């Protein structure tokens, strides 16, 4: 039996990535760190799609198309989020999420 040919291996790796992302999202003290954790969560979802695509899906193209879309949305999200972080940093001079609690400076 090969571990690379069983579905559960990939699902467990995806669970690990997801849990790491949640852990980092709660524990990080900066906006960029939280963004990195969000990327980990997105990537775990993509890995899950690819695993089910290989082992159970009727049409093998669907999961790959979906993963490509996840990548595109992740790229757009990072571009927007980084420019928002920069705008917040310019205005408040800090990047601790706890310190940024006023809407108007």
């Amino acid at each position, binding site marked *: 039996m090969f571990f690379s040919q069983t579905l559960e291996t990939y699902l467990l790796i995806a669970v690990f990535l997801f849990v790491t992302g949640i852990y980092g999202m709660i524990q990080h003290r*900066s906006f960029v760190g939280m963004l990195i954790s969000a990327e980990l969560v997105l990537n775990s979802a993509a890995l899950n799609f690819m695993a089910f695509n290989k082992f159970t899906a009727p049409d093998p193209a669907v999961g790959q198309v979906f993963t490509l879309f996840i990548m595109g949305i992740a790229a757009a999200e990072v571009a927007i989020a980084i420019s928002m972080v920069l705008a917040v940093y310019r205005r408040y001079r800090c990047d601790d999420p706890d310190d940024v609690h006023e809407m108007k400076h």
Partner: protein
Amino acid sequence: MLIYHYISEILFFAFIVLTFFGGILAVRSKLIIHSVLGLAVCFLGVAGLYFYLDSPFLSMMQILIYVGAICIVLVFGVMVGYTPTQIAEKHLKGKNLVLAVMSGALVFSLMTAVIFKSEFVPAAKRTGDFSMEWLGRSLLYDYCLAFELISLILLAAIVGAIILGQGGRGDN
């Protein structure tokens, strides 16, 4: 030919180890730039896993988009926005750490239980294959609308990022 199977299995575990250590480095390191490095390593590991899922095209896309674009954008964000004294993470609060570990353990145990309890049945009949030709065909025929919408989202993201990023450093 069996020896090649074992070699590929060893490589598979190497990719898993790469993914794990990258993920841990991404969330545990004190410096943000090390977190970005860990993220890149983790994405490389996942790109290797995509090879074993029969999609070398997605593997290349993973390296191109995640490692080549997203990590670079994150590095730019760290370099442009942070003064050197603020690159290091501030003290990790104890309450947050306990909360993070507890929620992580809870989600992990729940999902692991779900994975091992449920039974995954393969599809009775498969249409198409894993080739790039079939992927491109379904991308441009069946999922054409979603394809166009993604380009619209990317355009909106570009315009939004430019508008948000307007103005210099001292410009409020």
